[in-house]
């Protein structure tokens, strides 16, 4: 039987298909304004016999697609555990939400924390900041730690205020590498604060699109002082986890 997992996120829809031999294929498209038609396009490229939906748009599929739904928390935990069986903690930074999840020995979810309703510290936050600094999102975070970080920091919790702060710094003539570093450090601090509310155990899997950002990964390693694993497609782990249900 061919199984599929569909993760309808705020920015991208991810689709994982596991064929009867266990081979996994991943597909990804921007969510856009009509997620249902995007889902249909994804299905057309690879039909499965069974579908489980997750992500903030999961209930769309429940109504029209006759699919089971699970939350992205359960899905990402399952996906992370599949690719890294040692995983006891997941940090998942998605488009709108940041989650930290503590797993039991057997892989089940023990407890979790999510960011508040605002976008502080999420992927959307980083996207807006990358744009303000003129980075392509794939390039953002490649500068790493600057030799001269000018001791600047981003103090605002709110995305809009933080953007104003960034613009202020640009206009002061601060190098964009230094501002980028400060922004990454601000996100790391916010997520680390969330991890303090759960029982963080080794090993940690960093999931979600933001895990492709090397600077963030390095900063989490420095701050949390634990083993951090990143899959080659960290943004696909929730879709994979859904497919496995």
């Amino acid at each position, binding site marked *: 039987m061919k199984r599929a997992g569909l993760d309808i996120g705020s920015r991208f829809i991810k689709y994982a298909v596991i064929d009867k031999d266990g081979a996994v294929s991943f597909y990804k498209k921007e969510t856009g304004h009509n997620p249902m038609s995007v889902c249909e396009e994804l299905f057309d490229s690879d039909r499965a016999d069974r579908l489980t939906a997750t992500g*903030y748009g999961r209930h769309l599929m429940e109504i029209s697609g006759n699919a089971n739904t*699970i*939350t*992205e*928390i*359960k899905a990402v935990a399952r996906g992370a555990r599949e690719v890294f069986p040692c995983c006891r903690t997941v940090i998942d930074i998605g488009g709108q*939400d940041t989650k930290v999840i503590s797993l039991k020995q*057997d892989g*089940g*979810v*023990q*407890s*979790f924390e*999510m960011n*508040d*309703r605002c976008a502080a510290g999420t992927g959307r936050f980083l996207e807006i900041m990358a744009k303000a600094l003129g980075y392509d999102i794939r390039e953002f975070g490649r500068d790493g730690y600057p030799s001269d970080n000018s001791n600047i920091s981003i103090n605002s919790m709110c995305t809009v205020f933080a953007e104003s702060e960034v613009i202020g710094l640009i206009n002061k003539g601060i190098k964009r590498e230094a501002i980028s570093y400060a922004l990454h450090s601000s996100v790391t601090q916010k997520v680390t604060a969330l991890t303090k509310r759960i029982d963080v155990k080794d090993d940690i899997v960093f999931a979600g699109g933001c895990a492709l950002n090397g600077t963030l990964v390095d900063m989490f390693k420095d701050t949390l002082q634990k083993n951090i694993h990143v899959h080659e497609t960290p943004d696909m782990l929730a879709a994979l986890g859904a497919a496995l249900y």
Partner: protein
Amino acid sequence: MSKDYTTMWKELGLNLQAHDGLLSVLTNAYKNIYLSQKNRPAAMDYFDFVISEVHGLRIEELLEAKKANKKIIGTFCIFVPEELILAVNGVCIGLCSGAEVGSDSAETHIPRNTCALIKSFMGFKLSGLCPYVESADLIVGETTCDGKKKAYEAFNEITGKVYVMEVPHKKDDSDRFLWKEEVEKFADKLTELSSEKITVEKLKESIRIVNEKRLALQRLSKLRAADHAPISGLDALLINQISFFDNPVRFTAKLNELCDELDKRVKSGVGVAPKGSPRVMIAGSPMAIPNWKLHAVIEGSGAVVVGEESCVGERNYRTLLDTNFSTVEGGIEAIAERYMTIDCACFTPNTERLDNLEEMMKTLNANGIIHYALLFCTLYMMESYKVQSVFKEKDMPFLRIETDYSLEDMGQLKTRVEAFLEVIREGNSN
């Protein structure tokens, strides 16, 4: 609503256009959230009727009572002794809150970062939307939190009819003494306002009425311990909310009728959700009508809410009042003592609350606890950490929710609640 109350609302000084808008939003919400539930007990009909007439027939009754020289006393808190109000032939009524109404007007008197409940009661009054506040002869405030304490000053400037009872924040001898004096002063205030003398007989009779009401609410609570749950948490919450509005004698009779039906349901194994559905208890801030948001999300996700550890819930009816007194002073002392058993988060320390929570979890056969706090409701937000540590030790699923009356966090709220229910279900299957 069965008849046109426009003239009555106009005479009360309501903003008719805004009020029509409010009622139509409420009617729709009620239809979507309440009337769409499956397999409701037949006796819920009465409570549906009360809600449909909450700004109509009930207000007409209050105005009739006023004509008969009875005083209408509006309250916001379970610390205000209903027994004393009934003892002077008064009517005790909960005032409007629970919806995001008139925030902009409220913010001309109180800060933006105030809890939704306080903002809402200010907003209701300032927008001319609460017939209860307009019917009240006296509005009784209390000092259970700093937000309310200061908001009552502004509320008095606007309404001119606020009276504040000081609730102490410890339970030492000196605090009990202060509270007893506050209850005595309130009795004097009521006597003066109503020109009715409080007698031992009247006190005993009103205590009997309120005890009966609390007993019926306790009975409902016990019936919710059954799996199959015989009634939804949404319906039980509604009944608890209505207990602050309805005529207490009629309410008690109707609630007992409902409990008779629920008794039969429990015996024959009829329920509102499949047997074995996750059973969640909610603890924390009170939920005034029409704040049904969290219950709706939880039950919409396939779980049953089996209890409310809240002022609109168990805290309101846990303790009965001893009628073993022979003087008015003795009666007032008994009242003061009973109200000091309330485990409100305003007290320090408040260890009774933790014990009561554990007890409730056991008696209601709950599988998990959601601690609910209104944003900026500092006392319950603070206590959630203590509650969490108690349940963490017992490996009991725990979720903390901080939210308000708005719908902007519905997506996140749903994800959190559903993930929490997944944790409960997985724990059950192990």
